[in-house]
């Protein structure tokens, strides 16, 4: 009996990579929750989770007690499975149940085209042990799928994430959840445009949609973060916005919207939302590494490694594949660490500021970068130095343009009055305030007419 036609060495390699990386991604999502809590604790001068080990309360496992709280995410996940799954009366039950699944699917399939280990050379034909089928071998790509439109796949999956959030907000029949999902969808579609334009810039430099080709281009010339730093910054910002991470987490900002679109969720249906957020962060970090940080490539030539060293695309042996895999994962972890640091150092933007910065700043900038890159490629200046100079020129130009641009004086950051309240009284209304503390009473007149703002 012959092997089925789809069964090639590439297929087997892809399935093995998927089986490994899906579990790594879920583990990374769980572990980054732990590391987020730990890093935030150190930033805020606390200790963070430090009790839950892997002893499961068993005396014979007591040597696994403690473990710096590493078992915390496992305990949280198990706890969520055992919690009550509850949906409020007014909720649309079918959509309410569907939404967490719709959220988690795009988060888990986004990484499929990332070439973790580059290319691996196998013999031309391989005979499978035990079964005895002979399958075609040759060069296989150590990725979830060897497709030639990888970048478009990434973009398509990234835009699927908004559906689950809108469904969750709508089905909850809760005003906070509804507002949160509206904000999230508006923000995510707004930041998808600069994301697409910046990927376009990277594509113009490389001239191919294949992820492996992008790494080859970066290893033969320079990492794209050196030739297109502005596009790299924009892509990083857009990934933060797409994953609803701080400083763009208006969808779930606690002060205004309780918990945003997952206010009504409980048990593991709730657990899937943070899980998919962290899976988004992990996948987005891997994609950023692929696009701008050279993927698995390290410039080992600088420290004297010869042609075809362990991390060059030409080296297709098994040790090279393993080394590339680890370098790729390490770079991805570094970006995840950066994302966590950003969350705990930068305050959240207000919603109108988020939208303003998308439509009035990032999108025009991205269009200018694309046009300048295209013109420079036409004129023949496609070296790294020339592109870096062009980026510096764009930055200086944009900063110089800043004072000239029309400003809407006072309209921004204007105080929204609540007519008739203590702070915005009606025309001529006398306001009685009685501060509780003695200091405040000395400080402020107890009875007066506050100045009334018109406009």
């Amino acid at each position, binding site marked *: 009996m012959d092997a089925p036609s789809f069964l090639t060495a590439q297929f087997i390699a892809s*399935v093995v990579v998927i089986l490994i990386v899906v579990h790594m991604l879920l583990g990374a999502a769980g572990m980054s929750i732990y590391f987020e809590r730990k890093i935030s604790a150190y930033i805020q001068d606390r200790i963070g989770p430090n009790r839950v080990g892997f002893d499961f309360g068993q005396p014979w496992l007591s040597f696994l007690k403690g473990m710096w709280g590493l078992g915390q995410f496992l305990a949280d996940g198990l706890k969520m499975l055992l*919690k009550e799954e509850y949906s409020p009366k007014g909720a649309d039950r079918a959509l309410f149940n569907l939404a967490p699944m719709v959220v*988690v*699917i795009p988060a888990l*399939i986004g990484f499929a085209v990332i070439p973790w280990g580059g290319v691996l050379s196998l013999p031309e034909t391989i005979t499978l042990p035990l079964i005895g089928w002979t399958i075609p071998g040759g060069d296989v790509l150590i990725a979830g799928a060897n497709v030639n439109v990888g970048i478009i796949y990434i973009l398509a999956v990234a835009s699927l994430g908004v559906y689950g959030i809108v469904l969750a907000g709508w089905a909850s029949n809760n005003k906070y959840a509804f507002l949160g999902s*509206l904000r999230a969808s508006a923000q995510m579609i707004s930041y*998808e445009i600069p994301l697409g334009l910046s990927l376009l810039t990277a594509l113009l430099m490389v001239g191919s949609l294949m992820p492996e080709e992008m790494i080859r281009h970066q290893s033969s010339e320079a990492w794209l973060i050196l030739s297109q730093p502005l596009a790299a910054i924009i892509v990083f910002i857009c990934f933060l916005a797409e994953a609803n991470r701080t400083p763009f987490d208006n969808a779930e900002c606690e002060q205004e919207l309780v918990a945003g679109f997952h206010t009504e969720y409980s048990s593991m249906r709730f657990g899937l939302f943070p899980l998919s957020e962290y899976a988004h962060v992990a996948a987005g970090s891997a994609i950023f590494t692929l696009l701008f940080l050279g993927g698995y490539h390290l410039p080992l030539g600088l420290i004297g490694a010869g042609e075809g060293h362990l991390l060059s695309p030409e080296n297709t042996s098994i040790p090279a594949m393993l080394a590339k895999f680890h370098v790729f994962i390490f770079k991805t972890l570094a970006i995840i660490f950066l994302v966590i640091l950003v969350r705990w150092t930068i305050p959240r933007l207000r919603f109108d500021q988020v939208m303003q910065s998308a439509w009035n700043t990032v999108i025009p900038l991205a*269009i200018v970068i694309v046009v300048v890159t295209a013109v420079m490629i036409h004129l023949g200046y496609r070296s790294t130095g020339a592109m870096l100079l062009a980026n510096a020129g764009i930055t200086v130009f944009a900063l110089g343009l800043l004072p000239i641009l029309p400003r809407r004086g006072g309209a921004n950051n204007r105080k929204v009055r609540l007519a008739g309240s203590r702070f915005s009284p009606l025309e001529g209304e006398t306001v009685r305030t009685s501060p509780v503390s003695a200091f405040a009473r000395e400080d402020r007149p107890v009875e007066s007419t506050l100045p009334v703002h018109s406009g």
Partner: protein
Amino acid sequence: MPTAPITLAATDLSSYLPILILVGMAVTFGVFNVVASNLLGPSRTGKVKEKTYESGMDTIGSAHKRFNVRFYIIAMVFLVFDIEIIFLYPWAVTFPNIDQSTPDALLWLGRILFFVFTTVVAYVYGVRKGVFRFD
């Protein structure tokens, strides 16, 4: 050290088969978690418990009502830009690979720049109309 000429970019449909498997795994993961917590967890209800959460107050009305039209306008403008970007992708892949000294290359660049220019006109129109004012 093998430096083989590498044949990448499978174009046949069977190269998408692993993605199908991955989607199946993701669906299984989502369904399993929702069903498992439904089966494992307790289930109790009550008159107050089944209210929608509104900061502890009694729920007023439904959330399925009209909302700010600005979100709709943003969605419309997004469609304009997103379709423009999708049309630019095939150009961005082929343009760097063609010989830039031929007059065709200049023509191609000019056409795309005009295409981008039309979108910029739409953007300026939106700015003048106040589409991008969020307050």
